[in-house]
């Protein structure tokens, strides 16, 4: 099938692919051909009265129908002036047709409830073999259980593909909160997925001043929507999976709710200290970011300050939006990359391996930009085995650009090539017009929708259709780096293998990745771990540390394949 797909793309791309940027990378905007026409409605278009209209939402790549091809979920928002019922925007589900196009199955999906969605996490919470969805909202967060009736011959083909089980799962909240980041993970390593939910702030529209009418409602002399400063903070939540389809709120006994006074956004679960227990890093807006260290006994402690990931190198707080993990310097340790507000720089925290991180942003080549940066990935875009950086941006103050053109509402994307020496180079203008196209973007996800061996990008554009950027690193008549893609299936551990850590040995180098259920900005990447291998055609060894801590190894694995590895206790 891959070869057929390539042939089709070859026709579409005639005369588009360009070599010679030294990066051997090119992105083509294939959104229209792929079938993404519906805009993601989110608040006002040219002005934003309240902060609820500004933050936007995430997107997801995941294989919901288990056909080996990743599908697309885009979240949606609303408008302050209510739309007619039949025009109510919602999340949208697109199934991969395996030919470079997608079919919109939203009406049948059961996901079409309106609301202000924020973040998404994806995983098989009931270990039934079908991938489920959890979405945070301003209001009631929702857990959607995958019903598994995807085949035409399914017993009830007219039944929704997903069922809202929020109430029966014990996740229905009493008060109206503004859920933000969220992540499935198995914090107690009992083999099922628990759930972390961040809350951004307490937002009651009638209590928030209008633009210009408060101390945090002005930017560069222009009245703008107020906040987050000045608005009340909230606390975060942890739900333990009881293993019977229900969850128990353990936010207080676990210590998660102890951390206060933060505007929590994206949640990234990763084992930062390599003790085999998953920790949680939460990017926080305008306040110190949180690193919940798993104490291995059901409790967590925020250690961000002493570990060096709460602030920048001078100890100053930044407006954390999106966050990604990856080993940028090839030392076998996972580092963090976090995006921030305009006139600031993103932060790259290098894991020293001695229990703390150091801010190496400037040394790595990052500097201030006029863009508010959101979704991001520390991913290998050119299969050279070094993770690069891709970031999307968009202003929260559309009103400002009329006065100051240097702060445009719609922004280009930013691509930084990892030079393999600890430094990155901005190559945004060298990788195609699609990257330079301007949108007010928020979430983005990375995955290989055409199974051709390179990472494509899905982007949420506020009040515009989502964008699918196809990576042309591997394309007809082009030679790309080798790669290996691993699909992990847990048996003893949670079936989605969230939290699994994979190491690859290629010659003198060790590549490392971990399977997480949320990253970037409120988004979910293709759960198949993608490793660029450069010129290496045979991987010496693959080591999987499954979420329960057991290790499995494979040797002499050939490149350029999608390999499914099922957890084995042998």
């Amino acid at each position, binding site marked *: 099938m891959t070869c057929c797909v390539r042939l089709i793309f070859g026709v579409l791309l005639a005369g588009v692919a360009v070599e010679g940027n030294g990066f051997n990378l090119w992105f083509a905007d294939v959104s229209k051909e792929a079938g993404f026409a519906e805009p993601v409605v989110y608040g006002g278009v040219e002005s934003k009265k309240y902060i609820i209209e500004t933050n936007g939402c995430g997107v997801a790549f995941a294989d919901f129908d288990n056909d080996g091809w990743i599908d697309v979920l885009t979240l949606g928002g609303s408008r302050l002036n209510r739309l007619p019922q039949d025009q109510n925007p919602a999340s949208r589900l697109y199934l991969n047709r395996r030919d470079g196009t997608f079919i919109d199955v939203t009406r049948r999906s059961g996901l079409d409830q309106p609301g202000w969605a924020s973040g998404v996490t994806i995983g098989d919470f009931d270990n039934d073999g079908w991938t489920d969805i959890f979405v945070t909202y301003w209001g009631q967060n929702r857990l959607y259980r995958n019903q598994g009736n995807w085949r035409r011959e399914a017993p009830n083909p007219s039944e929704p593909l997903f069922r809202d089980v929020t109430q029966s799962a014990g996740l229905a909240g009493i008060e109206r909160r503004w859920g933000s980041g969220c992540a499935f993970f198995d914090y107690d390593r009992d083999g099922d997925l628990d759930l972390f939910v961040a809350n951004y702030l307490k937002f009651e529209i009638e209590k928030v001043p209008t633009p210009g009418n408060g101390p945090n409602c002005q930017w560069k002399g222009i*009245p703008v929507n107020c906040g987050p400063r000045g608005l009340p903070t909230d606390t975060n939540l942890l739900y333990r999976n009881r293993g019977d389809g229900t969850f128990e709120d353990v936010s207080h006994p676990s210590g998660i709710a102890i951390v206060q006074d933060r505007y929590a956004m994206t949640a990234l679960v990763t084992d930062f200290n390599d003790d085999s227990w998953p920790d949680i890093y939460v990017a926080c807006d305008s306040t110190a970011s949180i690193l919940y260290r798993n104490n291995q006994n059901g409790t967590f402690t925020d250690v961000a300050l002493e570990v060096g990931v709460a602030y920048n*190198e001078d100890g100053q707080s930044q407006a954390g939006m999106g966050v990604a993990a990856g080993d940028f310097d090839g030392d076998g340790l996972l580092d963090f990359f976090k995006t921030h507000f305009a006139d600031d720089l993103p932060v790259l925290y290098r894991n020293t391996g001695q229990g703390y991180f150091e801010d190496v942003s400037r040394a790595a080549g990052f500097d201030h930009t006029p863009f508010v940066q959101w979704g991001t990935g520390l991913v290998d875009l050119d299969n050279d085995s070094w993770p690069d950086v891709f970031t999307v941006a968009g202003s929260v103050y559309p009103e400002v650009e009329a*006065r100051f053109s240097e702060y445009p509402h719609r922004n280009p994307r930013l691509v930084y090539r990892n030079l393999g020496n600890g430094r990155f180079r901005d190559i945004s203008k060298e990788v195609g017009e699609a990257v330079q196209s301007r949108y007010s973007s928020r979430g983005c996800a990375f995955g290989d929708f055409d199974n051709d061996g390179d990472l494509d990008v899905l982007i949420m554009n506020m009040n515009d259709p989502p964008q699918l950027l196809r990576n042309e690193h591997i394309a007809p008549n082009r030679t790309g780096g080798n790669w290996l893609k691993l699909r992990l299936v847990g048996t003893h551990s949670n079936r989605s293998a969230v939290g699994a850590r994979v190491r690859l040995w290629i010659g003198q180098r060790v590549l490392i990745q971990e399977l997480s259920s949320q990253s970037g900005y409120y988004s979910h990447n293709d759960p198949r771990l993608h490793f660029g291998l450069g010129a290496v055609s045979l991987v010496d060894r693959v080591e999987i540390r499954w979420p329960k801590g057991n290790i499995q190894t494979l040797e002499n694995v050939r490149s350029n394949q999608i390999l499914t590895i099922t957890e084995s206790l042998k």
Partner: protein
Amino acid sequence: MDAFRSSEHLFNYVVKDGDKLNLLYRDVNAGTVVTKMRTPLILPVLLLGFLPARGQEGPLARVQELLQAGQAKQALTIVATLDPNVRQQPLMQHLTGLAHYQLGDYLQAVTFLASSFAQAAKGTSQRIQAAQLVGMSHYFLNRFAEALPYLAELEGSPLDTAETQYVRGICQLQTQNVQEARRTFARMFAVPADSASSRLINAQMMIRQNLEELAVQELQGALALDPRLPQVRFLLGELAIYKSDLDGGIELLKQEIEINPGFAMAYYRLGEAYGRQQRWDEAIPPLQKSIWLNPFFSGPFIVLGKAYLKKGDNTNAENILKRALSMDVNNYSGHYLLAQVYQKTGRMEEARKEFQTAERLRPNSNQPQ
């Protein structure tokens, strides 16, 4: 009466506003002058000559006494018990507004004092004071355009002070009225209205208000009028660095040093700019020069400590940072960097304590100071 708890409020507001979004200064380490002067910004608005003399009987006098004693809540309690006709009297409305102003309830203050302003005859003390307080209230509410007509009323009056001029100038800047602001600040600083100097001062104020783009234009105007005016290139250099034009910023700072060789801040920013380029060896000499020119400012000590930390010279980093902290004990960036030195040298417990100290000193920290 402590009518001017609000003056403290003003001071805090200005500082807070600067902290909020003034990222221009975020690259530095919040260095502060050791011999810092705690400037009491007193607003002399006690123009209550139009009110009954103290000691007289009656609710008006009682309310006035309470306000003068700083007991605004009690004053409002008395007002609430009064007959509606008494409450509607212009002077009582004025005092009610004043009480709300003292309590920081600026919306209510505007309601009562605007009424007092409208009813008072032009040029009277009552009208002038009402104008000042309504203008200030609007300012605190970020209603800059609404504040301006009231603040304009103060011109030439006893309340036309440096502080009200400052607030007026800020309101003019926030409403993008650059020329009016320039005139206001020129009067405040006693420089010619349409000079290079007035542009320099206006640009400084613009930077404090996060209006960097306007500041660049204003500074270029100053440069055109007087190419050798000190500090113009310094500010342009800072703004270039803020916009990530590090090479351009460094060049401007070097030009500033050529015409203003004793200006410690220029060396400090130059060292810091080299640091942003990771040119730590080049950063150290200008930072040292800055310290030798002005040993009472902790900023260059802290950046110098950071330079040694980045170079892996942990001994010098520790010594310099400790020296900086002995001068400026509440500098959270200094403590944060020192914690990193301890971390790098394996003194984890000392690092933890320094991190906690930094956290406690952080602005807006919820931990006890």
